[in-house]
């Protein structure tokens, strides 16, 4: 009898040890790929990063050049997408947080917004193609911005709502007791105390769209030349990387690595900035 118990005990111990070792292995597995991907990116990227990348235009195959027009295009489109998406997102988020206690619109919108948050970005690109490219007859930087702004909106709506609901209702009541109308309460009290949180959301949204390629493929298309006219096809870093990396030309592939490094540094930098901003806000200072 005691023999049987002992065996059972050993078996349980063994299963436990095995399961927990596998759990440790999975963590190592994930970390390996993180380090591997970053290492490849840094070693390839830095060895092909030089001044020409920032000062020259994208070259025709087989010759040297840079990524200046692509960087400019990306900056333009991300900037305008943020300018379009932010107000829409903040106001919609305000409705969900402040007026969303009753009625059908708020819960449904919240649900739809969460789905849009993870919806395939290439489908957003298709939608904008139908709306802003096909109907106009040509690709344009505006269409690219619009597609990106549709990716900004769900992120901003989500964080705005979360951050505004975190603001204690006593603050609102105190302001209301002083006779402030509700819109003033929201603008002067709630927005002000949720400011850092909303900013965090905004940074995360910018980080998300900076690396996006799929929605730009058939909205902004690409442009080999210097272009600052948003109503024409415009180049972007992500699309250029895609085109150059898939090409058989070594010069192009090298530029793609340099561009990939730039995008990743920018995106990860924004992510880290957003998190430190948020943490310093959370801790009582």
């Amino acid at each position: 009898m005691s023999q049987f118990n002992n065996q059972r005990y050993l078996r349980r111990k063994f299963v436990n040890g095995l399961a927990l070792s596998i759990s440790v292995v999975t963590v190592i597995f994930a970390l390996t790929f993180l380090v591997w991907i970053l290492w490849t990116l840094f070693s390839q990227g830095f060895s092909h990063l030089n001044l020409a990348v920032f000062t020259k235009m994208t070259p025709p195959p087989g010759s040297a050049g840079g990524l200046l027009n692509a960087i400019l295009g990306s900056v333009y489109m991300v900037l305008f997408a943020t300018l379009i998406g932010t107000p829409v997102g903040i106001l919609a988020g305000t409705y969900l947080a402040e007026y969303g206690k009753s009625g059908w619109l708020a819960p449904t919108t919240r649900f739809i917004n969460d789905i849009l948050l993870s919806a395939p970005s290439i489908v957003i690109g298709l939608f904008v193609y139908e709306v802003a490219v096909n109907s106009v007859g040509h690709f344009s930087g505006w269409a690219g911005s619009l597609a990106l702004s549709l990716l900004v909106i769900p992120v901003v709506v989500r964080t705005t709502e979360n951050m505004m609901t975190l603001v204690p209702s006593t603050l609102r009541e105190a302001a209301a007791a002083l006779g402030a109308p509700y819109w003033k309460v929201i603008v002067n009290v709630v927005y002000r105390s949720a400011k850092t949180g909303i900013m965090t959301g905004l940074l995360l949204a910018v980080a998300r769209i900076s690396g996006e390629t799929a929605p730009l493929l058939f909205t902004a298309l690409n442009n080999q030349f210097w272009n600052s006219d948003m109503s024409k096809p415009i180049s972007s870093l992500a699309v250029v990387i895609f085109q150059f990396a898939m090409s058989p030309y070594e010069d192009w592939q090298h530029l793609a690595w340099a561009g990939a490094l730039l995008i990743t540094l920018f995106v990860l930098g924004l992510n880290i900035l957003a998190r430190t901003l948020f943490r310093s806000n959370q801790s009582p200072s």
Partner: protein
Amino acid sequence: MSPSAQNKNVGATIDKLFRLTTMFFAFLVFILLFGIIITLFIGSLPALKAFGPSFFTSDAWNPVTVQFGGLVPIYGTFITALIAMLIGVPVSFGIAIFITELSPVWLKRPIGVAIELLAGIPSIIYGMWGLFVFAPLFADHVQPWINDNLGSLPLIGQVFQGPPMGIGMLTAGFILAIMVIPFTASVMRDVFEIVPSMLKESAYGLGATTWEVVWNVVLPYTKTGVVGGIMLGLGRALGETMAVTFVIGNAHELSPSLMMPGNTISSALANEFTEAVGDIYTSSLITLGLTLFVITFIVLALAKLLLIRLALREGKQS
């Protein structure tokens, strides 16, 4: 009317205006979803009229004779996502267990940050890494082994036979797995953390091992949340474009082998949409896009509902 009463009136009007403005923008978000579905549906009408429901069962894809069918990309989308789930879910589960149950406190944050970094890397980087680094390695070292050892199995052997090219469905699925791990793992970690420690401690008090606590207490308590997290990852895997486009090989041929190049809906769109000539070709691609959107919508909606159900139960208990 006294000035103060007038002031109050103006205040009330602005109040109403403000409310209506925010409501309008919320409505805009609400209507966006239907806008997408309706627009894509209109765009896909020419193809649906030309091919009817057989579009979804035909594996034809011939721009010259204008014959299109969606079977190959739809099949590819599901198979790559399935591979991603088979690898990604157990790994995410292991990571979540490690963070919530095993990790010393000082290690929790760094690992959390590392997982977030993995989620923050743009998908195009995964694609480039997959094409230039992973695929050659996979072709030289892993695929010959799979061919030799799994290729001769009865019945399923066919699935693992194929030229070791590096690119193909298996590679795409594997890279997708790495991409969905951060999303699934962080949802699992979050839901594992809501398990009341009293429940866990009473199991420990009865002499249960850590694994038994996880399997018999934590998992049953959080199963809706875990499934929600898996579905969220699945939604990502189905719709991911760039990482897949680099390594899938863009071939419109149906093959039982996972080693062969294939196509997914998103990679077909990325590769062919701007080059598509003619209404039917474009419209066929839009139909594929609509299909993808509907599939991911269903998956994500289910994920969301499951997570909401878990949150509701949480609310009732506390």
